[in-house]
């Protein structure tokens, strides 16, 4: 349904980096994410907004803090729809072939 938003959210190195940061440590504040990124607070806020619209991150209030969490559910849906169905069988075969050829070269 919202594959477009997910792909758009992922189509930027800074946003992918933010996701990596959250993957390393889930549930960070804006301040913590800004420290980890060499970027202005305002740009980080904008990127986080796009990620949240695409539902690849979600936020939770804990007292006065707003924590950001990675949400892998839409990523899994994209994987299920756009990767898994193509990769089964054929990709495994290609992978085996590559391994076999590279082994023979040694």
């Amino acid at each position, binding site marked *: 349904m919202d594959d477009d938003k997910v792909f758009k959210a992922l189509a930027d190195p800074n946003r992918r980096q933010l996701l990596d940061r959250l993957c390393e440590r889930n549930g960070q504040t804006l301040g913590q994410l800004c420290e980890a990124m060499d970027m202005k607070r305002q740009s980080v806020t904008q990127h986080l907004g796009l990620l949240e619209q695409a539902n690849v991150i*979600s936020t939770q209030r804990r007292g006065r803090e707003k924590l950001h*969490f990675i*949400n892998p*559910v*839409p*990523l*899994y*849906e994209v994987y299920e729809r756009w990767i898994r169905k193509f990769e089964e069988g054929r990709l495994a075969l290609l992978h085996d072939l590559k391994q076999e050829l590279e082994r023979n070269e040694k």
Partner: protein
Amino acid sequence: MTDKSASFVYVTFIRTTPEKVFDAITRPEISRHYWGHENVSDDWQPGSEWQNIKANETRTVELVGKVIESAPPKRLVISWANESQKYDPDQYSRVTYDIEQQGDMVKLTVLHDELQPGSGMLKGISEGWPLVLSSMKSFLETGQGLDL
């Protein structure tokens, strides 16, 4: 004290009603279709036990816990542990299902917290929840779950 600081939040938007989402979580004959497991409890009332049972002939009980809070069809809070670790209070984590109507969609938020960082359960659920929730969405929208 045991470190139980790890938490995950999973969100999915499903084109359905809050009642159907609540039923999908709490009714074994529905959960078996998209989870491959049945969520079973006598009444899903606070203090009652619940179990997650493999939906095949082995009927293995995989997860156990108690209902902490229940407000159908909007909210369900349960404790959660591996059956094999059920006598160790440190192994219990907490799952909160929040179900909220947003236009013609239902926003389902699963907050899984009080997890031990680096634990097997943490690893298991971070692989498991995206599959289970994608499958639930697919099942409620199309009648077909995913192959789990």
